[in-house]
């Protein structure tokens, strides 16, 4: 059961602990979500592979390009720009499909973390019912999130990068370059964190109140979440902490992998396994963030219930 009660003030530590609990209690769900994502990503990779094979299977220069020959890679990229665009759009299509599926999967995961069912069967039932019950509300939240990102985050990023464009162009050290980039994107990142937190808490709110407030709509949930997030900046800090954790494990991977390009067939298998491990850890972090959000969401009082008078 949840450690927090309504009206309690909980901090980042409690939210992080709730996240760890969520992952450890529902490891199967984490693995299941990861499996769905991995299948979709690998499916996109397979389509890309077949597309590349249709053009390059008889051209050994492509083998050289994949296995680290810079000139061959340059030539392939330079001379196969249409294929590059096709590859990119396949990836974008897979990501969009995942986003659409996420409205169901996210609803299911939040329902499980809220109701905390016991046993595999009960968890599956809860997951399915939760995902289906909130799907259309989550869709509306997802669209609102997309609009907010395009309207606020994107312009902030453009303005930020424009402000330091000269510095980026003239950066003499990596510190100059990365520091400028971080500063340029910081406002946009903060806005994204705020919007992300608002939308996440709107989803948590919908899930938490579903049994008692079935009239609660997406717009209402978003407005309540906005007030909640503004009053509880720890919610934003928690989202940022999640990002930081994901960036940290990615950074550790990058550091460890540096100098080990893992070319050739054996290297490719090793790379696939290691990278899937990394993706699994990042998926666990995502679920842990959801767990923390449910924990915090449970501390706020529910909205007033609509009273329906009858004769």
């Amino acid at each position: 059961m949840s450690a927090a009660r309504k009206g309690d003030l909980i901090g980042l530590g409690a939210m992080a602990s709730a996240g760890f609990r969520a992952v450890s209690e529902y490891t199967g769900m984490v693995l299941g979500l990861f499996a769905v994502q991995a299948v979709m990503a690998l499916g996109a990779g397979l389509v890309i592979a077949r597309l590349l094979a249709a053009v390059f299977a008889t051209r050994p220069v492509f083998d050289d390009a994949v296995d680290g020959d810079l000139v061959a890679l340059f030539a392939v990229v330079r001379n196969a720009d249409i294929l590059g665009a096709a590859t990119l759009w396949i990836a974008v299509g897979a990501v969009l499909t995942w986003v659409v599926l996420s409205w169901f999967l996210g609803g299911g995961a939040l329902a499980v973390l809220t109701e905390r069912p016991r046993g595999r069967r009960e968890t599956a039932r809860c997951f399915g019912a939760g995902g289906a019950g909130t799907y259309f509300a989550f869709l509306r939240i997802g669209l609102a999130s997309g609009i907010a990102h395009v309207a606020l985050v994107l312009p902030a990023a453009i303005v930020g990068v424009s402000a330091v464009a000269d510095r980026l162009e003239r950066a003499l050290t990596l510190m100059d370059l990365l520091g400028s980039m971080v500063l340029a994107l910081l406002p946009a990142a903060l806005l994204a964190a705020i919007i992300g937190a608002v939308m996440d808490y709107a989803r948590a709110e919908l899930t938490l109140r579903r049994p008692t407030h079935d009239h609660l709509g997406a717009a209402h949930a978003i407005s309540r979440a906005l007030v909640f997030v503004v009053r509880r900046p720890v919610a934003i800090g928690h989202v940022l902490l999640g990002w930081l954790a994901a960036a940290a494990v990615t950074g550790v991977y990058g550091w460890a992998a540096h100098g080990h390009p893992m070319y050739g067939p054996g290297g490719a298998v090793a790379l696939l396994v290691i990278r899937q491990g990394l993706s699994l850890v990042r998926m666990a972090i995502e679920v842990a963030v959801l767990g923390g959000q449910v924990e915090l969401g449970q501390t706020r009082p529910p909205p007033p219930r609509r009273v329906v008078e009858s004769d």
Partner: protein
Amino acid sequence: MGRAPRGMHAAMSLARFLAGTLALTAVSACSGNLGPPRPQRMPVADGKPAVVGAPRSPRIANYKIDAKLDVVRHQVTATETLTWTNSGQSPVDTLPFHLYLNAFKNDATVFMKESRGEHRGQKASPDAWGWIDVSSIQIAGAEVRPRGKFPGPDETVLEVPLDAPVAPGQTIEVRFAFVAQLPEVFARTGFKGDFHMIGQWFPKIGVRVGPPGAETWRCEPFHVLTEFFADFGVYDVTLTVPDTHVVAATGVLTAAVDNPDATRTLTYHAEDVHDFAWMADPYMEVISDTAVVDGRQIEVRVYHRPAQREFARRHLVAGIGSIESFSKLFVPYPWPIMSVIDPPPDASGSAGGMEYPTLVTTAADHAGFRPGVRLPEFVTIHEIGHNWFQGILASNEVEEAWLDEGVNEWADGVVMGMIYGERGSLVDWDGWSADYFHVARAAMKDLGKNPSPIATVPWKFVDPAAYSQATYEKTALALRTLGNVVGRDAFDAAMKAYAREWAFRHPTGRDLFAVLERELAQDLSWFIGPAFYGTGVADLSVRDSECRPKHEARGVFGDGTARKTVTERDAPDTGAWVCEVVVVNSGTVPVPVDVEMHFADGTRQRETWDDRGAGHWHRFEFERSSPLVEVELDPDGKVLLTDDFLDDQIRLHGDPAASYRAGARAAFWTQTLMQGFGL
């Protein structure tokens, strides 16, 4: 003051944090402050002869200039005395002078119209035009400025008719007084903040060319895609600048004196050069070292702002290596000093990457170019290389840009290999390596679709991209291909002969080819014609390849009672394989090329196909004990003047393994994106 509710307080904190972040971003956009300029230490005269040994050139156009720089108005006020000798065999009744700075006078000049106010991605400032105002021209004591006229479409060429023609062999002295207003730099010359790069700044006489007795002037308006052409001479230049400024200039410093008005007068002397450029800046530092050429020490200096020290060290290594390598390959560097200016980052794109005698500007200092990614070094090597290709071999850059830019680009590739090793000459970083020539080939797309040949007058190219592709990379790739075909050592020796024969003269493209044919003792028209005067390239590919098991003939043989059917059982496979490979060159440049066949048992067979006069295709037929699995055209990468080399090597049976490896990598990045957007 009342106390805000808790929620409001948090919201205000958040707003303050966001505002702070925005302010931090804005502040970071501002550049660092170097402090007020301080007087510089008095420079010491170089104490070296301006050129080694006897005069190297005919010294036709000699200049004495006395100039003062106003660093606030960015103006140079000067007097100039030109001593010019008619070295031709026909009399001269008009003197034309380049006034290059007038190219930046308004947006109606040839340069500005052709460039649309943009040069190498840098835009002209609408508030800082450049111009040169020649207030006086005196010949033999008479003022002739009023007679001067601008014969061209703008004011970049001034012609002065003479009272009496200058007879062959006669020398004339012309005195000028002028003010040069520097533009905010966007195309080589001008100022940016406190940095002043001063080139093409004084009235400069044209060049007489043509057969003896029928010489004509070459003094074109300043076009955006052309550079410069001038006669060799001796320059004596005094520069008066604030004592806070570091100065670098063409030639050697012979004297330096401080003036009472906090200025300093520096005297430079240069011999056997055809231009004079200088830089003045209050924040430059200098590092230097020596290159050794024929036992002689050449001082290489790199001028840089403090923040660019690390890049300056890289430029210095490249500078020393290039002075030594170019000297070895062509003719020894004849001057005692080479100054490399590393412009400040905000002027790098506009002032960087330009060559003048004994002084060049470099560029490409950027955090992205880590040590081993040698773009900055390449710029330095390229610009120093111009001290040979066009500094010493003073070809007409205005009409044959490829002869200095392209030939220099080829030489740069060779020199990069000499300094850094051929395999990773351009990139040798983090496990990646690439050499200049193969990167250039891989970077070129649709090389054969450029509508203009290499040998095209620059302003007649369809656009700057076509000019750049043909003049720089295509020329370099053509020369490298020719070198690979005739043998690199022989080719390098022939290029050295060209350099020695034409040093301190004005060679043309035809002079280059004549020397190459003579030195290589062969007719090269089969290559030079289509490669330099045509628009095509070699376009090699494997059109067909097939292998089948060998057996005696099968089928029906004979008539009537003699008719006999031979089946597979009667004529079984022998175990050998009959293979055919058809290679084609669908381009317009014929080249001999190696063709390597790979067989299933791991053996290889190499053949050579000489396309010259062979009908653009060839069929190889052979028998082997093992089937053919792969055909590779040009396995040693000798033919660089080619389009789309992806189909130069083919497998007979597709192997998608690499595609799956690439797909697995794409899957990971797709999954990473998914984790950013979903759930």
